[in-house]
């Protein structure tokens, strides 16, 4: 702690003397913690326009043009920002019925979404309907437990993606819900559902060991928690039974959380689980601060919830 204080003071002094060269500036910035901002939505369900002022439940809420302004100002504040969606982009307003998801994908591309996972409703026009809209999406679809090998989606969806922001490596992998019983087989065709917990273990191993990721995010459409069937795989269950995931961004259950849930994983380490309801009513924002201390922070991670 003392060494750190000393360094911060001296680096400030050094820049003050106007000797500041490029390397010095880089040095001073490397001593400041790097902030990574993760923004997220889920279950937007084609809600492009805001709700009308006389809507019975969500008057004046939502709207992608407003979300665009908010995201823009957050990005101006911190360029090291990732924007993610946890699925069910499709279905819910005539925009989807008329244009089949084209506008949703185009707008998400304008907003510079970085990645999205696939929700059950994203199959509502069949796997062909999803595939047909892919040219409009400039962001990556990720799902580690949907095996699309024998479908037209093969090679158009990756299990994970690694992003590098401000020198920090962020690994994001996707998980989807079991389609059988939820979606007509004629819609998802030969899409194979793989065990989400097993795939998570594989993903975290790849992201941590092969890619040396500093931060691991799971983008999930499994659902937050199932009261009546607690054994059904959910975000809370996933958090408890895996390791090395820092954040689970969820969807499917349209769960409004006052604040993210803090769960202890299998190694007794913290995992954050979050979900922001539905229909673009909210934007989730989680800031991760990294510093370059040689020894792992003795005080652990501070998470004021």
């Amino acid at each position, binding site marked *: 702690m003392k060494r750190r204080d000393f360094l911060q003071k001296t680096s400030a002094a050094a820049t003050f003397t106007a000797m500041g060269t490029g*390397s010095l500036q880089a040095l001073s910035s490397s001593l400041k913690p790097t902030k990574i901002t993760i923004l997220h939505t889920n279950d937007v369900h084609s809600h492009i326009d805001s709700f009308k002022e006389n809507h019975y439940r969500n008057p004046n809420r939502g709207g992608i043009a*407003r979300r*665009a302004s908010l995201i823009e100002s957050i990005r101006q504040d911190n360029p090291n920002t990732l924007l993610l969606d946890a699925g069910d982009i499709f279905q819910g307003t*005539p*925009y989807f019925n*008329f*244009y089949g998801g084209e506008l949703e994908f185009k707008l998400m591309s304008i907003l510079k979404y970085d990645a999205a996972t696939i929700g059950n409703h994203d199959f509502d026009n069949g796997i062909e309907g999803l595939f047909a809209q892919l040219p409009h999406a400039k962001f990556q679809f990720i799902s580690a437990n949907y095996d699309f090998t024998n479908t037209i989606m093969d090679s158009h969806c990756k299990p994970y993606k690694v992003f590098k922001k401000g020198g920090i490596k962020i690994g994001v992998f996707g998980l989807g819900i079991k389609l059988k019983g939820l979606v007509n087989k004629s819609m998802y065709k030969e899409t194979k559902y793989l065990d989400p917990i097993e795939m998570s273990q594989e993903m975290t191993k790849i992201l941590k060991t092969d890619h040396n990721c500093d931060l691991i995010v799971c983008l999930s459409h499994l659902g937050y928690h199932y009261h009546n069937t607690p054994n059904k795989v959910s975000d809370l269950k996933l958090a408890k039974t895996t390791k090395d995931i820092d954040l689970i961004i969820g969807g499917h259950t349209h769960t409004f959380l006052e604040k993210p849930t803090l769960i202890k994983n299998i190694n007794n380490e913290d995992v954050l689980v979050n979900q922001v309801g539905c229909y673009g009513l909210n934007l989730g924002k989680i800031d991760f601060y*990294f510093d370059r201390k040689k020894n792992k922070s003795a005080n652990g991670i501070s998470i004021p919830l």
Partner: protein
Amino acid sequence: MRFTYLMFLLYFFLFLNCKSKKHHLSKISVSQISIDNSLEPNADVENFIKPYRDYINTELDSILTYSANTYSKTDGFLNTAIGNYMADVVYDQANPIFKTWSGHEIDMVLLNHGGIRAIVPQGPISARHAYELMPFENTIVIVALKGSQVNNLTTYLAKNKIAHPISKLQLILNANFNIIEAKIKGRTVNPKKTYYVATSDYLLNGGDNMTFFKAHDTVYETRYKIRNALIDNFKKVDTINPEIDLRLIQIKD
């Protein structure tokens, strides 16, 4: 002189840091931001949406027919005017197609009460009302069921005590909700005969616990959306004027 030393020291630390390349997560802060009218809409995004929105509004708001009254799924016990209307529309719109394909006629229609998602208000009716009434993409399917399976269907309706929309089927129940009479197109259900039951793909796949569809012989997928059947009917008729009738009733004594 002192500064040079300091610089070396700083470079040394920098070198060390680069070498170790280890980032440690020290703090996480969380927040959730409500999207509401305190945020100014982004003008570029708004302009991008506008032509899409304008086209939808023109399509959805042109008047196609008129409704004589306001119809709600909560008006009526075992059958409702709005449910009767929807089931009759499915029959009227799908039967000609099915007949051309298969040479058979649809014998009866079954939809689900939960699938009626809005009211039909009195006055001008546009396609928007069809989207509100039926926001889902469900299609009409015709299921070949043995009369014995149709009996499971009628038992379900009797036990369920919910006004699931039906057409061409008449079901009379006693005070204890037991079936007194079950007729399809005016004839008593014959357990050995095959009946062609029009329903939605949602119910065919077990929706609302309609498990009797599982034991089907053949399924004819029309790919005709229920919503489009409604819109096509709006275009065809001058007035919507359905009534609560005797298709599913209970006789108390």
